[in-house]
């Protein structure tokens, strides 16, 4: 009994080392969205085309859709852009949310890089971004047919993320 007491420190150390070892494999920066599993937040934003009309979550319902927050000033968006173009060709429906951007700039950007979006809404002051819990573009949300957020991709959509996380959801939702 007397000896057990003296082993407490070494046991604590082992637990700590185990914790740290697991910690090395974790990414402390990855923060899951509390919105996953909940209905997409409400918003009403002007569309890029046709001018004068606006987009609301209602228009997204009925089928699975990707909601992609992007901007013409964002470097990560150019990284994911070719993949988005490819997906849109495959028939995946993508809604663009142009975050803190000027319509003229984004028009030019889409002309240069191609337009993978079915519709582009302008979130000029970033209010919708705030409501959706966006903390840096690009971010992409997967919405089910009922308008529920199924998944959030932080940073560019990579081929791996598409294959592993996003595609199964779209297939399952259909």
């Amino acid at each position: 009994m007397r000896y057990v007491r003296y082993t407490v420190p070494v046991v604590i150390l082992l637990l700590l080392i185990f914790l740290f070892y697991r910690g090395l494999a974790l990414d402390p920066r990855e923060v899951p969205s509390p919105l996953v599993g909940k209905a997409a937040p409400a918003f009403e934003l002007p569309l890029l085309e046709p001018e004068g009309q606006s987009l609301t979550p209602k228009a997204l319902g009925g089928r699975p859709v990707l909601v992609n927050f992007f901007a013409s000033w964002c470097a990560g968006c150019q990284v994911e852009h070719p993949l988005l173009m490819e997906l849109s060709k495959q028939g995946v429906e993508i809604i663009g949310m142009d975050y803190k951007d000027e319509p003229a700039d984004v028009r030019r950007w889409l002309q240069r890089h191609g337009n993978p979006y079915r519709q582009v809404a302008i979130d000029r002051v970033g209010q919708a971004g705030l409501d959706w819990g966006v903390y840096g573009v690009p971010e992409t949300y997967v919405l089910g047919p009922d308008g529920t957020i199924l998944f959030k991709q932080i940073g560019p959509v990579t081929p791996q993320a598409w294959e592993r996380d996003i595609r199964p959801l779209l297939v399952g939702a259909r």
Partner: protein
Amino acid sequence: MRTLILAALLFVFAGGAFALTPQEGALDPEQEARYRTLIHELRCLVCQNQTIADSNADLAADLRREVHTHIAAGATDDEVRRYVTDRYGEFVLYKPPMTARTAVLWIGPFLLVALGVLIALRMLRRPRAVATPAPTADTERLRRLLDEEER
């Protein structure tokens, strides 16, 4: 990974710049104080480890503005916190609320104090008359020196 080298050394903070936006719209002194406290409690998500009060990131400025607007509109502190956590999760709270999961964080230290005091008292209450081992030459000499120093 090495390309990710950002900065260096202890006590070095990445991004020493900050953009502050003097908030429009006046708050009364009580609201102003709450605003100050709240922005020092909320974490900026895109930063390394900073409050939204200290951060220069765009998002931090947006969140400061939101906190300001909500307080000006009469929201309570809890309402403001809920507004932010609904969007970004509990991660943004530098002071995690007391829940079943965080209870150990808030109560743990006091349990440790209790445990420590208990152990200390046990050590004190058990005056064991252990035979002092025969002092070796040097400890004896030291003892004399000690006593000499003692006032």
